[in-house]
């Protein structure tokens, strides 16, 4: 391994590496779009020298479904089944931002009970992502056991989603005006039982991952994001908090009834893959605690939806808004424009993956080992469907 990275490859006067493939010192290597070490349908065009990456370029375009354009052709209520597919792994923030944008522009105030139910579904969604995501980080280092344990618990949360919303993956629970159902009978009790299992899991996962010399030696120092990059590259959520910047919409711009909950997002300063794992591990515990608080504080039943105009021809006056919430990956926002018709004029999704997987990932991968690309990518929680909306 070339220890003095400043010498090789040579750089031109613009600071760009001089890469001559004909010299046989470099190799073009594509990671993805079909590759187990990629977080979805995108690919990395890596230029490697030996097993070291000298240049990386993220390619998207494998998944372009034009969702934002599709929304412009749909009634406001019809936007829901489409928008939940903007990010498959965590559909609820999609439901929340689109519904809230419609409500805000349409002048609808949702019932308090619906606010709590929305928070519950948003936190359950975060929980199921983190149950897979935290041990999944170890999975990128071939430590797959925790991932399997996490997937089992995630399945239990999906069972709860099935009870509450009628769907396991695409919940279609939050819709303009409120939500689509109250808590089923006995839901609280069953949920609390599951949270106890997750408490045990949290202890076990600590032993399996964070008390693990393999994980520690691979993750520490890897993919370091300096604090000053947070603003420069548009870093959000847990990745920003791992670099010492407090970014959590729930705390900085409380929405729904988050201001009534007691929580403190974890912030650390190391900025590497290990730090990001620790932050999300703390997020997992915090989410479990928040669900307990929500179940404790929410009312026993009540109205679930405010009466909207007839959804089949609901026209919303001219206006624009930006609605954001905190997804498991970071700030997740929707810029929404209406023009007085029954369909949105423009819908634009702003998720953290766009900056994380493009500009930031290209930068972080330079000088990294090929075997570490998956780890860096997963630590940024990139979600290609969210990039290619």
């Amino acid at each position: 391994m070339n220890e003095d990275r400043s010498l090789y490859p040579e750089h031109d006067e613009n600071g760009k590496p001089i890469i001559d493939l004909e010299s046989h010192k470099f190799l073009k290597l594509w990671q993805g779009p079909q590759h187990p070490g990629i977080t979805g349908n995108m690919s990395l065009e890596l230029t490697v020298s030996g097993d070291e990456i000298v240049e990386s370029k993220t390619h998207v375009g494998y998944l372009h479904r034009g969702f934002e354009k599709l929304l412009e052709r749909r009634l406001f209520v019809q936007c829901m089944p489409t928008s939940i597919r903007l990010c498959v792994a965590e559909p609820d923030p999609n439901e929340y931002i689109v519904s809230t944008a419609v409500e805000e522009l349409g002048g609808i105030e949702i019932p308090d009970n619906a606010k709590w139910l929305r928070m519950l579904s948003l936190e359950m969604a975060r929980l199921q992502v983190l149950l897979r995501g935290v041990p999944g980080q170890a999975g990128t280092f071939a430590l797959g056991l925790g991932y399997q344990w996490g997937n089992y618990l995630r399945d239990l949360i999906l069972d709860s989603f099935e009870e509450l919303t009628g769907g396991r993956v695409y919940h279609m629970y939050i819709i303009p005006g409120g939500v689509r159902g109250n808590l089923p009978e006995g839901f609280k009790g069953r949920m609390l039982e599951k949270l106890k299992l997750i408490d045990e899991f949290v202890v076990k996962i600590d032993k399996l991952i964070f008390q693990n010399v393999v994980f520690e030696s691979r993750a520490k120092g890897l993919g370091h994001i300096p604090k000053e990059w947070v603003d420069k590259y548009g870093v959000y959520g847990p990745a920003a908090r791992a670099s010492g910047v407090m970014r959590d919409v729930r705390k900085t711009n409380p929405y729904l009834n988050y201001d009534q909950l007691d929580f403190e997002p974890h912030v650390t300063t190391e900025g590497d893959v290990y730090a990001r794992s620790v932050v999300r591990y703390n997020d997992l515990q915090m989410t479990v605690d928040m669900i307990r608080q929500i179940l404790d504080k929410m009312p026993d039943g009540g109205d679930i939806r405010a009466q909207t105009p007839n959804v089949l021809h609901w026209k919303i006056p001219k206006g624009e808004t930006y609605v954001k919430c905190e997804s498991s990956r970071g700030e997740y926002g929707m810029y929404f424009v209406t023009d007085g018709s029954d369909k949105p004029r423009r819908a634009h999704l702003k998720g953290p993956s766009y900056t994380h997987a493009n500009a930031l990932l290209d930068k972080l991968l330079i000088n990294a080992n090929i075997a570490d690309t998956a780890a860096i990518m997963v630590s940024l929680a990139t979600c290609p469907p969210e990039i290619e909306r």
Partner: protein
Amino acid sequence: MNIKKLLTPFTAWGNVTKDPVTIKDPLNERPGADRYRGFHRNDVEACVGCGSCEDICENEAIDLMPAKDTKDGDSGLRPMIDYGRCCWCALCVDVCTTNSLTLSNEYTWISTDPEDFRYIPGIDKKEWDNNNDKGWKKPEPNYEFYPLKRIQPSHLSPEDRSDSFIEMMHGYSKDQAMQEADRCVECGICTATCPAHMGIPEYIKAIRNDDLEEGLRILYDTNPLPEICGRICTHKCETVCTIGHKGDPLSIRWLKRYIADQNPSERYKKILETENLVSKGKKVAIIGAGPSGLSAAHYLVQMGYEVKIFEKLAAAGGMMRYGIPSYRLPYDQIDKDIDYILSLGVDIQYNINVGNGEGEISLETLGNDYDAVFSGTGLHLGRSTGIPGSDNKHVYASPDLLRWIVEGKEFEVPENVVVIGGGNVAMDITRSMARLQMKKYGKVGVITTALEGEDKMPADREEIDEGREEGCIINPGWAPKSVEIDSNGVPTGLNVVKCHSLFDSEGRFNPQTDEDNKEFWPGTMIIESIGQGMDISYLDGKYKDQLEFGPRGRVQTDEYYQTGLPWLFMGGDIIKGPDVITGIATGHKAAVGIDRMLNPEF
């Protein structure tokens, strides 16, 4: 190297002795949750095929297919689901106007034939149709995709209207009309049911778009009397309105009135583009300026015919003017509609009767002078019950009294009146007499009876309720037996007996009464309002043999209301109905028929 961190992960071996958490046979051991959104099922008897599910489906996975017989209030269509497109969002369930569409909690279905996965739930039987009641249903309560509550226009209170013939219903304000129009799901079942097949969802949409000129154009496509129908239509559309299955049906009638009210009559010709009608040079005579005659005249003059109406009475409108009290239909609103039709170039001669008598114009003359004749002479004769004493001169027929009120004729208004009849005309005379009594005596003394029971009365529910609010006693379920008459030849009241049922098991009219359960209702005036008869004596003479007569003396016509005499068309209450909108529909169709006859090249 940290030895502890090297060894700690091996604690995972502790799980080796634990039972696996996976389900061995998930297809059998793992039913969907109670709310699971699985395969569709549809209660096809409750479903009316409104198509809201098809409208809301963003994947276009639902098509409505013919599956049942079409009838009033039921399109006969049922949703077919294509599981190649469906995403199981269940918005179709939430929007369903009858709550008939639900999802079961079944989620496994194996078939080698891809066509299987496109099916009509409820018609194509599936095992999950009846296996349990689990699965996705519309969440309850207070969860509706459209407001179910009707916006009521303001109206005069019973105290303010009980002695006044001023119109009692106020129209919608713009906000009210917009809100009411918003509730429509545009299923079009109303259009199918309306005798005139008015473009109801389209004009309601025009209200939502605040384009009332477009609304007026849509109204006049099928109905040239919107001010009138907007007030007194029997609104079969509202009876079948799909929103009525879960909530209040749309106020289609008041919405129609709103469009007509908001368009000033002086702009009608411009809006309806009838400023320059071109004549084709052929002439059509119309007998009777009632709804059917006016409707035929309107469409014929628009098609370029020279139209002349012969009207027996001193003003146009027929039963709309002479049969409906002005608190329901003010005369200026009748005039607004009629004046527009006359302004298109329709000629009208009043006070002329078509018949074979002295001073009358004969049908033969009309047949010779005109290329075609349309007759809509209506039902202006009262029918009598024929009970003992009903031939007394103080026993009146409701059409006569209603006409006298319009004409301003003086007649004795007694303190106590008994009305026999349960239809809308009976309610009209009941409430008119109540107003006259209120003016004269400061109190109401009307008892109205009908053979039918409370819920079977043919009158509109609001007519009955409003009549009661005004102090009338409406006492259905009694059969009149005889009119009691004193020594001076003046009635003292009506003897009635309880009526249990009206029709026998074969559906024939055969009232069953309980002779022991009888009552006497005092009244010095008895009014019979049990339906009207027609006077078509003008047909007598040389043409009678060429006409075919059906049940109840009605002349038989073809679908364009052409009789056995090719130049004679007949419509309105004497052929079909009776009601205004049916009259309008027959007049319109007859106009098309006349045009087809006189211009066969089209």
